[in-house]
């Protein structure tokens, strides 16, 4: 078995914007997935919103995430063939929210896409699709939002706009943000940056491996 992330001890604070930086293949996306409960750790402890994920199966982890965790993906991951509005409604309806339509509407207004709410995703530009993705991420009013390279598939200008939007919404909602990126400009907008290299955390300011103590990740 290959250890992709090892000897990591990390705590994400309430309403903090934590940026995980690292080169390609460094393990940053794996770390994000583990923190978000998308994958299971092979050893150690991991806690999400006060819930220990270490011994939970996918079904239990999904229940923990439900309505409390939002995601923004590099390649948007929207439902093709559905409209912008329907995409935002999806997590709300999966959670069983009765006012999914109105809340999705509101969320799209916040990202400035209300006029295009009934346009099929396939007909929106990359920047617009990422806005829909952000609207979907924030629509469930998550306590924590995980964003994996949110500007990675966009040009520099659109990337900046998306970053502005995401941080604005995070400021408005007070949502904790965990963001993975390799872009310095975006990383600098976080409250705290950590660097990961070959699956180990490096203190980004001092350039040394953090003496992590007990292996525990909590957010």
């Amino acid at each position: 078995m290959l250890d992709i992330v090892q000897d990591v001890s990390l705590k994400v604070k309430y309403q903090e914007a934590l940026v995980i930086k690292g080169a390609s293949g460094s393990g940053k996306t794996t770390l994000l997935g583990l923190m978000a409960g998308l994958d299971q750790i092979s050893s150690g402890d991991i806690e999400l919103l006060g819930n220990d994920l270490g011994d939970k199966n996918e079904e239990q982890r999904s229940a923990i995430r439900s309505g409390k965790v939002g995601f923004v993906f590099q390649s948007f991951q929207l439902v093709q063939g559905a409209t912008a509005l329907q995409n935002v409604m999806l997590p709300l309806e999966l959670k069983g929210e009765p006012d999914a339509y109105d809340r999705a509407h509101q969320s799209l207004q916040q990202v400035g896409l209300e006029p295009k709410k009934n346009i099929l995703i396939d007909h929106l530009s990359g920047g617009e699709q990422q806005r829909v993705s952000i609207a979907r991420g924030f629509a469930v009013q998550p306590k924590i939002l995980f964003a994996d390279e949110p500007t990675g598939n966009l040009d520099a200008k659109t990337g900046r706009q998306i970053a502005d939007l995401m941080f604005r919404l995070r400021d408005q909602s007070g949502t904790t943000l965990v963001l993975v990126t390799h872009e310095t400009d975006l990383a600098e907008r976080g409250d705290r940056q950590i660097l990961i290299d070959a699956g180990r955390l490096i203190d980004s300011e001092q350039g040394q491996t953090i003496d992590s103590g007990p292996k525990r990740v909590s957010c």
Partner: protein
Amino acid sequence: MLKIKSSGIQSYWLMLVATVITVSIVTSSQLLTQRISLLLDRQASELLAADLVVVSGEPISPEYQQEAEKFGLNVSNIVSFRTAIFIDDNPQLVAIKAVDSAYPLRGHLEIAKDTVGDKLKVDHGPKAGEIWVDPKLSQLIPSPVTLGSAQFKSDWILTFEPDRGGGSVFNLSPRILMNIDDLASTGLIIPGSRATYRLLFAGQPEKINQFVEWLKPNLKAAEKLQDLENARPEMRQALDRTRQFFALSIVLTLVIAMVAIAITARHTANQEAPKVAMLRAFGISQARLMRFYAEQLGRVWIIATLLGIAIGWFSQYPLQWLLDGWFGKELPVIATVMPYINAAIVGFISLVGFSLPFLFNATATPPMQVFRPSQTNQSIRRNLIIAASAIFSVFLVLIVLVQSSKLAIVTLAMILGVALILPAIFYLMINALLFTSRRQFWLRQYLLSRLKTKTRGALAVMSGFSLALLSILLIGVVKDEVLNSWETQLPDEIPNYFLINLRTDEVPAIQKFLKGKEIASSDSYPLVRARLTHINEVSAQDIEFINPHGSHLIKRTFNVSYADKLPDENEVISGQWMEADSDTPEWSIESGLANSLGLKLGDILAFDVAGEVVEAPITSIRTVLWENFKPNFYLMSNRRLLENQPQTWLLGALITNDKKGELKQLIQNFPSVTLLDITELISRIRGIVNRATSALEFFFLFAMASAFIVLMAAIQTGRREREQESSLLRALSANIGQLYTVHVFEFTLMGVLIGFFAALFASIAGWVISVQFFEIEYHFSSSIWLYGILSATLVLTTVGTLVSRKVYHVSPMKMLRS
């Protein structure tokens, strides 16, 4: 130099399996249909006692026999004539048939010691010095029997002769069968005697055909050829239906196999697209990639041909084991390699025609797909090429396999039409369903969006699966309709005896006798023997008929009848049936005869009836269901025209085994009556259709195997997308129940739509085929809808859910990795 490495045959395994099935279907169907056809023809030949007969009023040239023997054919000579024998000083007209030792060439004779005793099957006629007589005569004539100037021993009753009737079952006198070597000693046949000479031939079909080619130009005016096609109308109809049903079922089974190849090829091409994009980005030319895929297809074809031929060949054995029981005898062996060659050709055409365009399409994948995987290379032009190639391949296959079968071509045209419009129908249907309630996305709108997104995937797969199901339903529905119509026409109460040669004054007494013995009988009909002399006042001898059958027909003596009401299962298609009390003479003619003689309403027909000219116009043209074994007539008139002409009567009776003992008394009470047992004829014709359709049920296995491949391809095609979607839903916190729900509903929705349209088009096609080709009444049944929708839904949902079960456990991390 960069070398393209094959990813192995496993990339093409579904396509390979589909092609193996195609080749197996062709091998198996060709071998079996040829063998069954040969057997059916032989069984049918038994009704002629031969494969081919030359009939003449004069002795037939020995040259025919010599020539036939050169072709390796078996030959038999028959002379038949009528003469009177004296029973208790009363003359009795008998039909004598003198046969040689080779008779019958096909079928068998049946003899018994007495009228109710056990019957014995024999394959030769009486020995010299011996005669076999009709059951009726056996009660009356003494032994030895005097025929002309010779005496014969008469120990056996002739209960069955395969070729009795030879064109009309009603035209019979009591039979005496004798050996042809004794004929001269009787002195009954002298130059100028009125006799019918028959030369019977039997052999391999191709030899018969070659001989017919030689014979036709040599035939004299008085000689006519009789084969299965013109021997018995009821047999011809049965054989035609059977052959058409064979052709139809095989074409439909092949359609499913071809759909399987197309869908699996599409799946393979989609899988290859990313590899192609990468190779093209590295500078590999499209031509080189095309060559590479052509080589891959070549490998698939060679493996599929070898496996398919082997499976097709082996499949004969279980099938033969099944069929031997049904047919009661072994299937004849065919020594020809054509089935294998045809199978290899059809496999090649199907594989190339259906898969090459998809793979060549894949070679045009833009290198940009390396960066933008969503960029597709679909275009209307490419889709048209794919469609054109498929259509062309299908017609090539038809040329190889069914050649002139109009039914198969029309069916295929219908299916192609459906194939073209189905994706559009599904697209419109999904859009129409999407239009409603936009306030709620999960679950219905989500499902429909997914189906619509994968427009070219889901819709093509749904269309393919619909076509496969349509074909299966169509085989089933047409088979049921053909069999049902056959069974309906032949209820258990069908008369199994004809009582003929009844005198007019005897009819009420005979009917009373039958009623008293609780024997069911049909309506009675008069028979008047008539010879056509003039059509519209022109001598029939001087008329040149366009249809060669017409010139034969005018030489025959017709048994015409009259009736007040239209007989059962006759239908007037032109003109009007005669008024019962009409004083104006009128004819009603059977449509087939009208066509052969080129007759129409208003034409005036003159007949010679016992030396008197009987003339009337045609006022109606009828269709006649010859297969129903009820008294049927080519020509009928109103009562006024024939009532006073010399006539005998006939009626049908159902004489069950427990009533057979009454026959003796019937014959004693009414000595002029001739009994004609048609049980054997009915059961043989019924058996031919039943066995042939049962045999075809075997092809259902191939049809189901192909449909299963289509199903697997359908499920495999959307698998990658399903994994991606499940991963996304998981990341968005969907629970496993919601994942199951979405997949079960997707397969259920697809199943319902597929089943509905398959049933709809199968009903329409079934109606067209039944009415247009089988000429049977079509009953729209609810079972086709039930089977169609239920089977599609259950199979798709069950197999789809089971095969896709891994999808439910896909990690949401896939979202981050993709």
